[in-house]
């Protein structure tokens, strides 16, 4: 390449400097400052101080003092132009040369900006795709679950139509038979019995289906009422006596009420559950015995239903309480009985379980439900052999007086207060028993019960109310009450409740 003349070089330099402004700085020895030799510091975002120097610490920090040539490329200070930073060492002095590369920088920036934005969009799309996949998977799973549910439902409907079909055909058949002129009075009588059985069976089926629907739709309600335990036991004894005789089975009903006469419980539901358990026991038992043992103790009613039937295998036991978990032995029914019974018992605050079952030996079901005492036997209305410290919390003054008098009759040391504010929570020793009204004016008795339970973990807590609704019963239980007493308070019930408290203390 031929040598450029001096004129050409100078022209070229002029053109280059016009296109690419430069800043040429001489660094003062041992300083962060430099003196401007040529160019405009402001063009590169640097500020010229009053003494004509520029602070270059931001550029020289980390720079090798002995480096010659390009040090940093594509740098930019605040709003200045982009530059390449060179360091020149001339005659023992350091110079900084900033060469404007703003036009190149802009091109690179635009290309990079597009590329980065495209990558961000791509990332966003992959993330959306991932979310869509997850949603799709969840939808598919829920659709499969629905299909399974539909299958179970349609299987149930298929079984129901069969179950309803059989008694309906029998009823219609017998009615037609009775219509025939040739039918004798004796045959008519037999047909009438068959019609009665068929209708009773249909009614039972309808009730099961309705209960199941009510439980599923949360429209199921309990109505606790006063229930006489002896009457309950007698009724069941009578009810199944005929079946037992007919089947040649031994049928035995016992009651051990510990002096309790009446309890607070939803009698209709209790009967429904017991009936279901006993009917099942009779259905499966070919020989031997079926028994019902009722026992009341400490505000809990326990019912044992024992049979000497074929018993159940482990697999049968496992699906016993499942919906439609009917036994495979070809016995009639919707298969809802036990699952509904257990659900109802749970709503009553109790448990229903298969306590024991052995193949060839029989089964034993045990039901435990809370059953607060309402009335005890008159002879139980007597002094306790161990006097109790009892605190009454009731906002009604007359009732406070009455309760204290009743308690003193029973040999207790009783005191009464109107509300939580008057209770001495730090009393030492704390009372053995507290009787708390559930409706203390504006204050809910369950709040008081909760506080007492917290402060006196070992005290026997009795909730008291004229309202026997399931809601009040449940609230008192949740708040920590050991039992519930119904107003108007019957002395025998109070006496029995206190006896339970004494027994509890003795057992501790």
């Amino acid at each position, binding site marked *: 390449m031929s040598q450029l003349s001096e004129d050409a070089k100078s022209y070229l330099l002029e053109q280059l400097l016009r296109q690419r402004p430069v800043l040429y700085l001489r660094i003062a020895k041992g300083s*962060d400052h430099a003196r401007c030799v040529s160019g405009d510091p402001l063009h590169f975002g640097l500020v010229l101080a009053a003494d004509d120097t520029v602070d270059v*610490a*931001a*550029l020289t*920090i*980390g*720079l*090798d003092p002995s480096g010659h040539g390009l*040090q*940093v*490329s*594509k*740098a*930019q*200070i*605040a709003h200045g132009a*982009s530059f390449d930073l060179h360091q020149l060492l001339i005659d023992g002095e350091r110079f900084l040369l900033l060469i404007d590369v703003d036009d190149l*920088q802009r091109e*690179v*920036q635009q290309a*990079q*900006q597009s*590329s*980065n*934005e495209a*990558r*961000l969009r791509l*990332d966003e799309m992959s*993330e959306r795709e991932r979310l869509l996949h997850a949603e799709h998977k969840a939808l598919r799973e829920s659709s499969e679950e629905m299909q399974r549910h539909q299958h179970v439902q349609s299987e149930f409907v298929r079984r129901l139509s069969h179950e309803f079909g059989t008694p309906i055909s029998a009823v219609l058949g017998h009615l037609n038979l009775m219509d025939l002129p040739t039918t004798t009075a004796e045959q008519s009588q037999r047909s009438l019995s068959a019609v009665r059985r068929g209708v009773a069976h249909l009614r039972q089926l309808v009730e099961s289906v309705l209960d199941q629907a009510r439980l599923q739709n949360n429209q199921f309600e309990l109505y606790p009422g006063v229930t006489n335990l002896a009457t309950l036991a007698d009724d069941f004894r009578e009810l199944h006596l005929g079946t037992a005789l007919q089947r040649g089975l031994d049928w035995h009903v016992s009651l051990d009420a510990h002096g309790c006469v009446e309890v607070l419980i939803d009698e209709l539901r209790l009967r429904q559950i017991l009936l279901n358990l006993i009917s099942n026991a009779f259905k499966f038992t070919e020989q031997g015995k079926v028994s019902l043992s009722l026992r009341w103790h400490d505000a809990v009613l326990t019912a044992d239903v024992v049979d000497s039937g074929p018993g159940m295998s482990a697999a049968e036991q496992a699906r016993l309480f499942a919906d439609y978990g009917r036994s495979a032995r070809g016995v009639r029914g919707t298969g809802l009985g036990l699952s509904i019974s257990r659900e109802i018992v749970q709503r009553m605050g109790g448990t229903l379980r298969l306590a024991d079952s052995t193949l060839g030996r029989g089964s034993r079901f045990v039901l435990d439900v809370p059953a607060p005492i309402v009335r005890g036997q008159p002879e139980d209305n007597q002094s306790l052999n161990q006097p109790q410290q009892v605190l009454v919390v009731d906002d009604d003054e007359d009732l406070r007086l009455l309760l204290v008098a009743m308690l003193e009759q029973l040999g207790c040391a009783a005191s009464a207060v109107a509300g939580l504010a008057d209770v001495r929570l730090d009393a030492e020793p704390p009372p053995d028993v507290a009787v708390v009204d559930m409706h203390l004016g504006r204050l809910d008795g369950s709040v008081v019960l909760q506080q007492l339970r917290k402060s006196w973990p070992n005290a026997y807590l009795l909730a008291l109310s004229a309202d026997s609704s399931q809601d009040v019963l449940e609230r008192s239980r949740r708040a920590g009450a050991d039992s519930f007493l119904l107003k108007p308070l019957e002395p025998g019930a109070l006496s029995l409740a206190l006896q339970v408290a004494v027994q509890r203390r003795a057992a501790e």
Partner: protein
Amino acid sequence: MKTEVRKICMLGDFAVGKTSLVNRFVNSAFSERYLSTVGVKIDTKLVQLVDRQVKLVLWDLAGSDPLNGAAKSYLMGTHGIVLVADGTRRETLDSALRIHQHAESLIGARPTVLLINKADLEPQWQSTQADLQSARQWARNVWETSAMTGAHVEDAFMALAGVER
């Protein structure tokens, strides 16, 4: 009293908000618009510590290709590293770890703070508590920041300004 000068390098994947964090810290400003950085942007801020004044020189390095050949010239003389990840993009936390390891291989270990940025978009975060927990094992200080609201931005920079050399 002579002002101490400290060079802080901003490192992290592209579009995690490095430039926005510097802009929030230095100018108390924020822009929604994404503008990719090319090369390095240099800013300074004087901060007052309990016992001294420090001039922070912030080198905000391009996130697109932070490990290119020029990286070492940008990193020379660095006193501390502000490592930035975007909470809404989980992979940027992995990039942050990779970039940090590379930087250490070039200039040795330096005091580092990790900023999980875009805390204002927390409902969209992909980084889990477990991710943050494991990040705490390699970064002494982890801050959840937002350049938009300014949350913890000052705290994070000041934590680094105060670290003894």
